[in-house]
């Protein structure tokens, strides 16, 4: 167990140590021991390099992953709730189609999407990455489970009797009851977008539209020609994963409910 703990922490520990070093110390000093503390300078260099492009990538990542996951969660919740609480013709068929979508790997969609988007001229724009990112069949699957579990039918009925429309019922009654579940759906969606490297790589040529992952990948490919970039790749990796790790740890309990629901087949 101790060995496994070391294994999981080693790369992150190495990254923290390396991010505090001046470029010159990376190769010449032991990678697991702190040398000159140069972290703030490294961060300054990171954010000023190429006219502050890294900050731009950070903003893009927030647009793609945070905003995309928020929109995705909302549409998944509406659809999952309808599948759970309304009876209509074709409901089961609709759900089966969406469930089939869970098994479609997002990487497989990137190339055909690129060709389709080329025809419409939205390749190399925010929309090319943002639009496909909001679709999460798994989110609908979770939303349906959670709506069934958390929203009693009687409450919906009584809201209807009070004359509330379906949307008002959803937003004032169901939404509140489903909030913890919605956080879970949001987290899963966020990770899916944050991890999806293939889609932005296929869609974007303009550096100013890159998410952090694609930007760091590009820098990492240039370190042979520009060795000083190495330090920025390391610092940039650290700066981009630390906030996400902190949020993950704070929202731990939401993961467990989602993973438990995900494993009920």
């Amino acid at each position, binding site marked *: 167990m101790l060995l496994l703990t070391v294994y*999981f922490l080693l790369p992150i520990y190495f990254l923290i140590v390396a991010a505090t070093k001046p470029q010159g110390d990376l190769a010449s000093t032991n990678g697991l021991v702190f040398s000159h503390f140069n972290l703030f300078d490294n961060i300054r260099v990171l954010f000023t390099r190429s006219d502050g492009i890294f900050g731009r990538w950070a903003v893009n990542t927030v647009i793609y992953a945070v905003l995309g996951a928020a929109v995705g969660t909302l549409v998944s919740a509406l659809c999952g709730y309808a599948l759970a609480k309304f009876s209509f013709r074709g409901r089961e068929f609709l759900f089966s189609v969406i469930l089939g979508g869970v098994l*479609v*790997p997002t*990487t497989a969609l990137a*190339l055909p999407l690129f060709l389709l988007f080329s025809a419409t001229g939205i390749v190399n724009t925010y929309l090319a990455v943002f639009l496909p990112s909001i679709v999460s069949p798994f989110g609908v699957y979770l939303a349906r489970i959670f709506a069934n579990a958390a929203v009693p039918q009687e409450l919906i009925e009584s809201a209807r009797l009070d*004359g509330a429309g379906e949307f008002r019922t959803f937003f004032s009654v169901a939404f509140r009851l489903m909030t913890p579940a919605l956080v879970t759906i949001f987290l899963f969606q966020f990770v899916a977008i944050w991890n999806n490297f293939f889609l932005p790589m296929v869609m974007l040529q303009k550096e100013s539209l890159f998410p952090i992952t694609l930007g760091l990948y590009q820098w*990492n490919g240039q370190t042979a020609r520009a060795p000083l970039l190495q330090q920025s790749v390391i610092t940039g990796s650290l700066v981009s994963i630390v906030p996400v790790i902190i949020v993950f740890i704070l929202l731990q309990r939401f993961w467990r409910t989602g993973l438990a629901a995900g494993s009920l087949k």
Partner: protein
Amino acid sequence: MTDISTRVPHVMSSPGRRRRSGGPRAGTVAAFVTPFFLPFLLFYVVPVGYALWQSFRVVRRTGGQYGTSYTAFGGLDQYAQVFQNTEFWSSIGRIGLFGIVQVPVMLFVALVMALLLDTPLLRVKAFFRITAFMPYAVPGVIAAIMWSYLYSPQLSPVVDLLTSVGWQPDFLGPGAVLWSAANVSTWLWTGYNMLIMYAALQAIPQELYEAAKIDGASQWTIAWRIKVPIIAPSIVLTTVFSIIGTLQLYAEPAVLRQISSNISSTFTPNMLAYAVASGNNYQQAAAISVVIALITFVLSFGFMRLTSKRAGL
């Protein structure tokens, strides 16, 4: 919908007007479902259909080498080319080897960790759970960058350490680089899979263990004879997701390619599809993608069928 009153063409019912609570009207249902379903159709279903259609097309030229090109129906030509493509088969072979070793090792470790978390034997549970799960917050690209520094002979403290005890590892060598990529995947996903299994374990009612304890069963027996069979569905699920993920592998080897000369541009099936598409041969790339998807499908469902038969379900 058996509402035969004359429909007013607006969706919201006026306040105070009682409707039979037979649920909402078709228009309202559509308003709930469409915001998801329309993008789903456009960005999931249509691309799948489009890739299929493309894979049956071939590029022809009117007269000679410099004639204008157009696409025509080519039947199974593209597929025949995929099957004759040795690079395709070697990428499948590589990924097959990777999967046969990496997936069982990762899931076995995840299962052992989950079982340990579920016993009173392990203290500092929360700490261990968080530590193992943390890599899931790191995108594949960044994980591969981190590990590539730990593999690189110039920078790695691990290489330094192993060299000092007289072992000269070459993590980026032709024989090792595949396993270096496998290690990145293992590091990323073990904790996530552990949590799925642990969540399933937590759902088992404690009473089940009482009888076994009275019969004097050890923790060991309870774990392997009672717990594992009960959480079998979640093990199957994690296996299927791992198979899908393995066949889609792209980012990690692409990053390692930046520092190792032993990874070709066609190292994994997806890298090959991308390389072919970059050469503007979209129809061939589409056919490769379809074949990858079919292999994924057959393996996932084959595995599910196999395990459900064995479990006698």
